[in-house]
C-alpha cells in the first residue's frame, strides 16, 4: 500500500496562543487522530516545536568530513512553516487527499501530500 507524507504548513503564532482557541485546535487534532487511527491509516505522526527552536546543519565541501556549520533557525524563512506531519497509508492519491482534507492543518493552513518512495519490501 502506498504511503504518503502529509506535511502540515501554517503561520506560526507570534504570541502565546489563546488557551481557548488552542483547546479547540487540539480537540480537532484528537478527533482526526481517532478517526484516521481507527481506519488504520496513520503510519506515524508528529507535531513539531516552532521554528524558533530549529537549527540548520550543513557540512561544507559537498562531502562527508567537511566543516559542520550550524545556523539558528529553519533552512528557508517563509511565512508558512512546517508544523508537523503524518505518514498516511492509503490505497491511492484520492484516498490520501480525502484524509489530508480532514487534518485540521488543512483549514488552519495547508497540507502538502507527498508520496513516500517505496524501496521495495525485499530491499
Amino acid at each position, binding site marked *: 500500500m502506498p504511503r504518503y507524507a502529509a506535511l502540515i504548513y501554517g503561520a506560526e503564532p507570534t504570541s502565546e496562543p489563546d488557551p481557548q482557541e488552542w483547546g479547540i485546535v487540539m480537540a480537532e487534532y484528537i478527533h482526526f487522530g481517532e478517526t484516521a487511527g481507527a481506519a488504520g491509516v496513520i503510519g506515524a505522526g508528529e507535531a513539531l516545536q516552532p521554528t524558533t527552536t530549529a537549527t540548520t546543519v550543513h557540512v561544507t565541501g559537498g562531502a562527508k568530513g567537511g566543516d559542520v556549520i550550524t545556523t539558528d533557525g529553519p533552512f528557508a524563512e517563509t511565512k508558512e512553516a512546517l508544523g508537523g506531519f503524518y505518514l498516511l497509508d492509503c490505497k491511492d*492519491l484520492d484516498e490520501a487527499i480525502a484524509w489530508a482534507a480532514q487534518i485540521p492543518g488543512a483549514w488552519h493552513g495547508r497540507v502538502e501530500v507527498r508520496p513516500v518512495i517505496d524501496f*521495495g519490501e525485499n530491499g
Partner: protein
Amino acid sequence: MIDQLEETIRIEGGQVLATLIRLTGDIDRAEDALHDAAVAAVEEWRRHGVPDRPGAWLTTVARNKALDRLRREVQRAPREREAVRLLDDDMGSGGHGDGDDRLRLLFTCCHPALNPEAQIALALRTICSMSTVEIARVFLVPDATIGQRITRAKSKIAGAHIPYRVPDAHELPERLLPVLATMYAIFTAGHHAPTGAVDARVDLADEGIRLGRVLVEMMPDESECTGLLALMLAANARRAARVDGAGDIVLLADQDRSRWDATAIEEAQALVESVLRRGRPGTYQIQAAIACLHGIARTAADTDWPQITELYRLLEMRTPTFVVRVNHAVAVAESVGPAIALMMLDGLIGTPAERWHLYWAARADFYRRLGDPNAASAAYLRGLDCPCNDSDRRFLQRRVHEMSHRAP
C-alpha cells in the same frame, strides 16, 4: 498492410491503450506493450493477412506482451503482482475492453492533482493517439513544452498513485470542469484537425460526442455538461458540408445546408432549450446556443447575427480569450460592419493571438470587405506563417491568390 496498421492504431489506439492502462496500471507500461504489439503485427499481418478485428488483435497481443514483461519483473513490488492478476483475469474475457476504459482514462488525465495544461495534453496523447507535434499545434506552443508536460504528468500519476477510475457520484461535480474542457479539446481536434486535412480525425469528433453522451447520462443535472454535448452535436452536424469534393474548406456562408444533419441540430436545439430554462448559463451553453442559431438558419442571409453577436458578448465577459474575441469580431462584422470588427481586433496586436492563423484570416476578411485587397493579402500571408492544417493552408493560399488578382 502498414497503412492498415497505422490506421488501426490511429483510430483504435486510444481504446486499446485505455484498456491496457486499466490492466497494467501504468501508462508507460501500456505504451510499451502497444508498441510491442505493433512490431509483432508488422510480421504477423504480412504473413497471415490483416485480422478481421485488428483493434481486438492488437489488444490481445499487447496484453500478452505486457504479461511477459511483467512476469519478468514480478518479484519487484506488489503493484506488478496486482497487474499480473488483472491481466490474467482479463485473458478469459477475450474482450476488446469497453468504452468505460476511455472514460476512466479521461478522469485520470483530468485529475485535479495534475496541472490543467498537462491534463488536456495527456488526454490527447493517450485517448486520441495524437503526437506531441499535433498537440503542440492545438496549444500553439513548442513541441518540447508538450513533451515535458506529458512526461511530468505521467510520472506524477505513477509516483503519486493517481487512481484509474471514474469518481463516485458525489465527487463528480467538482471533477467536472477539467473533464469538460478536455472532452471539448478531443472533439475540437476531431472537428478541426491540427495537422493534415481538416477532417482527418473525424473519429475524435465522434469520440467526443460519445463521451459527452455518457457523461450527460451520469450527470443529467449538470447544465454545462449537457450544453457541451449540444455544442458538439450542433457543430458536428455541419461535417458533411464543410469540405468540398476536392477536400477544400467550404465556409459557413457557402455551405450546402441541405447536407447538414437536421436530426443532430434538432437534438442539440432541444438540449440547449432544456438547459437554458434552468437559468444557469455557462460558456458551453452559450456556445451551443450560438451553434444552434447557425444550425436553424435556412440560408446564410437568414442568420440571426444580432443575437449571435449578443451571445458572443456574454461569452467574452465570461471567458475573455483571444479565440472568443476573434469570433465575437466576426459576428460584429456581420451584424454591424467590418470596420468596427477590425477595431475590435486591434487589441490583439502583439499578443499570442498572432500565432493563430484564424486571427489573421478574420483580419484579412475584414480588410477584403473594406475594399483593401493589399492589406487583406498581407494578413492572409501572416496567417500562412502560423501553424495550421493542410486544408486551412490551401484556403489561405487561395485567398492570397484571389487578392492579388483584385489589387489595383
